[in-house]
């Protein structure tokens, strides 16, 4: 038996671990606090948290009382051994009791409705203050495009927003649009989710008051790689955010040592889908790569952004993210190395 155990485990386990390479994401995620809805760091999430606790407490009290009644009645009124076999008294109903257990729920529901409506308006109807940041969020199968129209910056999958001081809030307003199917923008610690629907403009806002990285992901089923349409929000103090913006506005810096790689980039299909500011690459189908290396992850959070992972990704994205819409590039080993050498200069 003992000898067979490892073999048996191997047989069962092999299919499970077939994709066990997590491309470094496990370690990276572990450094970020898990995205639970009960540790809000932004006003919308915080207001939701308050109404959530209120609701949960009410429901818990109802549960204890009603479940208590059920358990009490099945214990107290069970048929005992040696029963005389006579039927118990038949009770057909009671109007006062019915009235009581209709009225009490109505009152509870009334209180809950008032709380709910108040929170709906305070989150949804909040006006946009003049010193807020505006970001256009565009959902794609299966990645996120972030455009800062007032700041002239375009990036993907990792949203940078400034820290908002509760005394002088500088919230970020997100205009949500989709390039293809329905998605949903969700970063649990910052706000509830809002759907990202084609041919429609939705809006939400966040005002994170604690710096850090927050995990989120697409929450509306959007096709093959819905599960790996991840996103991160990086909240940094205003000076850091301004520095990041300034750096993002720079065009890519030419480095003559990687000229061959750039040539490959500019003469293959890459340019049809990607933008690199200052080059011929003006495609809009895929993420903007001007500052690719400023991002921690590639493939919308499918893999850590390392030269090794980049090489595997460019060679065939479906190894990392099966079904990704970027085709395998079929480059020779040397061209691939040179191309990756070029890509990692895009800081």
């Amino acid at each position, binding site marked *: 038996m003992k000898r067979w155990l490892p073999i048996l485990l191997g047989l069962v386990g092999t299919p499970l671990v077939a994709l*066990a390479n*997590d491309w470094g*994401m*496990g370690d990276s*995620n572990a450094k970020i606090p*898990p*995205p*639970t809805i009960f540790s809000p760091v932004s006003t919308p999430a915080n207001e*939701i948290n308050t109404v*959530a606790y209120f*609701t*949960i407490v009410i*429901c818990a009290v109802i549960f204890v009382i*009603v*479940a208590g009644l*059920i358990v009490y*009645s*099945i214990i107290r*009124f069970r*048929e005992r051994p040696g029963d005389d076999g006579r039927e*118990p*008294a*038949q*009770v*057909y*109903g*009671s109007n006062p009791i*019915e009235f009581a257990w*209709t009225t009490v*729920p109505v009152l509870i529901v009334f209180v*809950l*409705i008032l709380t*709910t*409506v108040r*929170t*709906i*308006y305070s989150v949804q109807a909040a006006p946009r203050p003049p010193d807020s940041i505006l970001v256009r969020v565009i959902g794609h*199968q299966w990645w996120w495009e972030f455009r800062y129209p007032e700041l002239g910056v375009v990036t993907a999958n990792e949203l940078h927003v400034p820290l908002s001081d509760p005394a002088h809030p500088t919230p970020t307003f997100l205009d*949500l649009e989709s390039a*293809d199917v*329905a998605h949903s923008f*969700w970063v*649990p610690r910052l*706000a*509830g*989710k*809002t759907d990202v*629907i*084609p*041919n429609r403009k*939705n809006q939400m806002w966040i005002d994170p008051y604690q710096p850090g990285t927050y*995990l*989120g*992901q697409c*929450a509306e*089923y959007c*096709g093959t790689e*819905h*599960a790996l349409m991840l996103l991160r929000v990086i909240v940094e103090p205003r000076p850091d955010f301004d520095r990041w913006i300034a750096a993002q506005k720079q065009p890519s810096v030419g480095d003559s040592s990687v000229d061959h790689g750039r040539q490959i980039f500019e003469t293959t299909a890459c340019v049809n889908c990607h933008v690199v500011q200052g080059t011929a690459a003006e495609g809009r189908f895929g993420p903007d790569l001007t500052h690719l290396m400023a991002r921690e992850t590639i493939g919308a959070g499918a893999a850590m952004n390392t030269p090794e992972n980049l090489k595997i990704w460019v060679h065939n994205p479906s190894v990392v993210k*099966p079904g990704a819409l970027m085709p395998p590039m079929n480059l020779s080993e040397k061209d691939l190395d040179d191309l990756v050498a070029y890509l990692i200069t895009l800081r």
Partner: protein
Amino acid sequence: MAGSIEQRIPLGAEGAASLPFLDRIHEWVVTVDHKRLGLMYIAGGLVFFIVAGLQAMTIRLQLAVPNAGLVPPDMFNRLMTMHGTTMVFLVGMPILTGFFNYLVPLMIGARDLAFPRLNAFGFWIWLFGSLLLYFSYIGGNGLYGAGSAPDVGWFAYAPLTERAFSRGNSTDYWILSIFLTSVGSTATSINLIATAFSMRCEGMTLRKMPVLVWLAVVVSFMMLIALPPLAAAQVMLLLDRFIGAHFFDTQAGGSAVLWQHFFWIFGHPEVYILVIPAFAFASEIIPVFSRKVIFGYEVMVAASAGIAFISMSVWAHHMFAVGMTPAGNAFFATSSMLVGVPTGIKIFNWIGTMWGGKIRFKVPMLFAIAFLLQFLIAGLTGIMVAVAPFDWQLTDTYFVVAHFHYVLVGAIVFMIFAAIYYWFPKATGRMLSQQLGKWHFWLFFIGFHLTFDTMHFAGLHGMPRRIFTYQPGRGLETLNLVESIGAFVQALGILFFVINVVSSLRSGEPAGNDPWDAWTLEWAAASPPPPYNFAELPVIGSRRPLWDLKHPEDPDSKYE
């Protein structure tokens, strides 16, 4: 092919056993008997229950560990689509339809439904639609690289279903098969309404109709109102896909949100269409095993009708995150919470029925008690998701998956099992084993809670639904492993159920007409009832005619 029709197809139950196999099959195919059609609905539903259960097992195996590679993403998406579609349209609907088919005529002292041929038509069109859905595995490939079975999720949100994103024919199979099963359900609902209103035996006024029959009427009206919007939307989607209409084609100016409205105008009442039959079973089973009359008959019926009315105006609570106006969100949050009131009344009335009774813990009652507790929790998490701001966090996460499985499994499947254990003796003449039944109950109960209790927490920890995998390091590993283990414990419970049914069909204890000492009319018929149900149509004086017979000194008719 010798002999007259009568010789080849004897009409009596007695003749059936001695027929050759093919003739026996033939007899089931041509039948218009409500009992046989009911049993075929239930059997068909149970077969699909096993199929969709195996799909769920595969899903849970894939999600047991992070980053698993057991099934590729496309296959996973097909599995979860087929699991959901199958469980709703090919399991829930036919089993509940089947029970109503079987029970309504017996309970109102009739010989059959009002339109027996329509009933047969409904069953066969349902079966055809169901098989069409599974034929998509073979026929779905329309283009190179296009998938086989549908992979758009059971609510098939536009524009993922449009030609641009769903190539091949898999989505067309989804549309047409569900369309056909809806035709069958519509036929059944018309039939049930006509039967309950015009075929009751002498003495059975509407106020003396068993609660189950009342709820069958309520559900039938709901089906008549809720199914057409779905059918209309499906036709519109077909037009989009085949002749370039632009109802939901966002690239040509169509509306994705319009589909969501259409779908949920059907989809939310659908939840109640499935759960009200569970209420119906509970309202028959809890009194018998508590040895007490149902507490507050009129209120129970009124509360069900109330649920039906309110449930028609709550659909957009599935859409709190699509960006409705605050006023829209407030309206649908309010109406959704109001459903809690009549639902609460029903739970209290069931407790009132048990209160002061002498509760017998037979297997049907075990399932019914678990149903009460689980439905209570499902209702309370339902209140949570009705709080629109809370739902902005909860919608489309595993919390919602947990919530609706608490309804669909914790309430509906548990009550289906209760109903099977309760009425199996009537339909077959043999008892199901209590011992195997208890194994089934406890394994299924433990497995259910392992799987679905933990799912709530996965959702609160940021796990969206419908993901084929999740990354390590996000705090989801333990929860998902427990969920998967629970799924296999449930499967073990189902194995006991299958063994129980198979062995009891062969050698179960003979049941007699009235094994539970019950009070409604079906227990006055033989087990199994003859094709004509009652040799002489009954005449009744109260809601519990058999109680009156058993207790002539204290009949119900004195109090009603």
